[in-house]
């Protein structure tokens, strides 16, 4: 893309031979059947290209119909005896704000160069404008520099020490992980990374590939960051009980959930309206599925408080690689399940007020989008799928491991966090605590512990 910073890309078309026609002839109607009529001999194109090059023009490609060339704006103006100006673009053409076009306008002079008789060899030369990219989303995360942020997959994988595990061949291959959330838009990022990405709808929802909120699409990128080789299936959810049922029927190894209710504490006991969900989760665990839930962002998160699930809190890592508990995440003693401390372990999570810490892909126009099909959001919603990914690495290394085995492995290999307080004012200190549970999951230690 070169028509910026004083550089001009242009195409040169040579004059037609006897018996042939110029493509610029007003009566020319080129089509598949008569293309030969407009095709100059390749030798002539080469000759013109050589002469252009000799006169200080950069040649990029000698094509069948034209020569692709470029030079500085100053050279272009002197070579063609013209004046290049910025073209005024129509305001209603939906053209990106930063798109610019430079070319001689109609009032500018124009003369083909006489050097090396080029004026007799060139039919036309014209500026080749940069195309407008119609893709709605960037395939790679943008580098926003207004704040310190993490990018997927590299930053997340490195901080959770999953990168070295991937290099040893453990990527979650053969492990099926299902995630229930707002939808799963097939963002170009997933294609660029080569992930095994699939999505379905729960029976009470429509169009799994549409995610107007952005939550599901973004959060599953955290899962892939720690386990890029998994077989992923997203379930677009409506009724959460039905979503868990749908996920369970897929017979996955792991179900990751970045949602819940702030009820375990504010309500003295489980209300009837949560029993269907509670039973659906128990049923899934009974079938040998490892269930991961976010603990909440200052919430008293259920089902994250169920003893049968892996409950995930948050740890923040700053630009100096200092690890601490974050004031955005939950940590509490369950009122409904005596003896149950939440969370078990932690993933990466931002801080108050917005926790806009990890740059994640979203559908263009989604609620969570900041720009170019990307957003920045990272409560325990982000932390849970990261941990679910590490569960997948463990499951690949030890397929026979139960949910309880996986939870224990995560706990006893986690990096202890001894600094900071969480949203419930629980202080991180040596050993397990309510601020971060057993600490930040460490994929490398978890796998080393097993093999």
């Amino acid at each position, binding site marked *: 893309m070169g028509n910026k910073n004083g550089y001009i890309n242009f195409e040169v078309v040579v004059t037609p031979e006897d018996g042939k026609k110029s493509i610029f002839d007003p009566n020319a109607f080129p089509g598949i059947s008569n293309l030969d009529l407009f095709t100059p001999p390749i030798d002539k194109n080469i000759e013109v290209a050589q002469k252009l090059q000799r006169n200080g023009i950069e040649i990029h490609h000698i094509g069948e119909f034209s020569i692709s060339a470029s030079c500085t704006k100053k050279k272009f103006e002197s070579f063609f005896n013209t004046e290049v100006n910025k073209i005024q673009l129509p305001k209603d053409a939906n053209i990106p704000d930063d798109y610019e076009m430079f070319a001689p306008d109609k009032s500018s002079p124009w003369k083909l160069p006489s050097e090396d008789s080029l004026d007799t060899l060139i039919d036309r030369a014209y500026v080749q404008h940069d195309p407008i990219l119609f893709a709605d989303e960037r395939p790679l995360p943008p580098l926003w520099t207004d704040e310190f942020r993490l990018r997927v997959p590299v930053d997340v994988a490195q901080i959770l020490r999953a990168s070295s595990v991937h290099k040893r061949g453990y990527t979650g291959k053969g492990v099926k992980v299902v995630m229930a959330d707002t939808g799963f838009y097939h963002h170009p990022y997933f294609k660029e990374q080569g992930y095994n990405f699939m999505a379905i709808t729960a029976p009470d929802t429509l169009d799994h590939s549409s995610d107007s909120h952005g939550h599901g699409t973004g959060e599953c990128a955290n899962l892939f960051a720690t386990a890029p080789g998994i077989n992923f299936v997203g379930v677009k959810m409506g009724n959460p009980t039905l979503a868990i049922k749908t996920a369970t029927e897929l017979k996955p190894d792991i179900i990751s959930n970045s949602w819940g209710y702030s009820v375990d504490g504010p309500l003295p006991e489980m209300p009837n309206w949560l029993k269907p969900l509670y039973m*659906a989760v128990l049923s899934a665990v009974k079938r040998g599925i490892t269930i991961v839930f976010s603990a909440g962002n200052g919430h008293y998160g259920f089902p994250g408080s169920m003893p049968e699930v892996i409950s995930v809190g948050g740890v923040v890592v700053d630009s100096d690689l200092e690890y601490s508990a974050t004031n955005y995440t939950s940590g509490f003693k369950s009122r409904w399940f005596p003896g149950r401390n939440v969370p078990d372990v932690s993933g990466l999570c931002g801080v108050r007020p917005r926790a806009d810490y990890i740059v994640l892909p979203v559908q263009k126009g989604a609620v969570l989008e900041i720009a170019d099909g990307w957003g920045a959001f990272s409560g325990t919603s982000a932390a849970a799928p990261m941990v679910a990914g590490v569960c997948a690495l463990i499951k690949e290394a030890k397929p026979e491991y139960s949910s309880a085995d996986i939870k224990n492995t995560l706990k006893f290999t986690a990096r202890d966090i001894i600094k900071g307080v969480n949203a419930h004012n629980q202080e991180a200190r040596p050993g397990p605590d309510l601020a971060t549970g057993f600490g930040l999951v460490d994929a490398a230690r978890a796998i080393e512990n097993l093999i």
Partner: protein
Amino acid sequence: MFLLIITLISCTLFQEVRAMQQTQEHVRFDVILKSSASGKDPTLDNIEEFFPESEHIEICRLWFKQQGVAVYATDFGLSGETSQAIFEKIFKVKLIPSKSGGEGNGWIVEGTLQVPPSIADYIDQVTLTVLPELF
């Protein structure tokens, strides 16, 4: 005997509510069917005892379908969705949209929910579905 009280959802339970959206006219609900374990507290050890007879699920599913309700079988009963008007007619209650539940996530139920006699023998509880918050 089959009168059930629907739990009202208080906004005070929700900090920084980011609940998934549910349109006010659209009602989702969950049905748990009776089983050999009805009345017990579900645990990991006894959860399979809560599976109802599959025949009972099918009877209830067809009944709801005949009333114009979309229902889907779960391990423990059914999850359904219908209009506010049909729900009110079936269960003889009045639903009042509650903004306090967060983004249209709640209803205030006026009256006591009554399970229709045709399926009452099979039903343990009917509850309105509350959509979760995204963490």
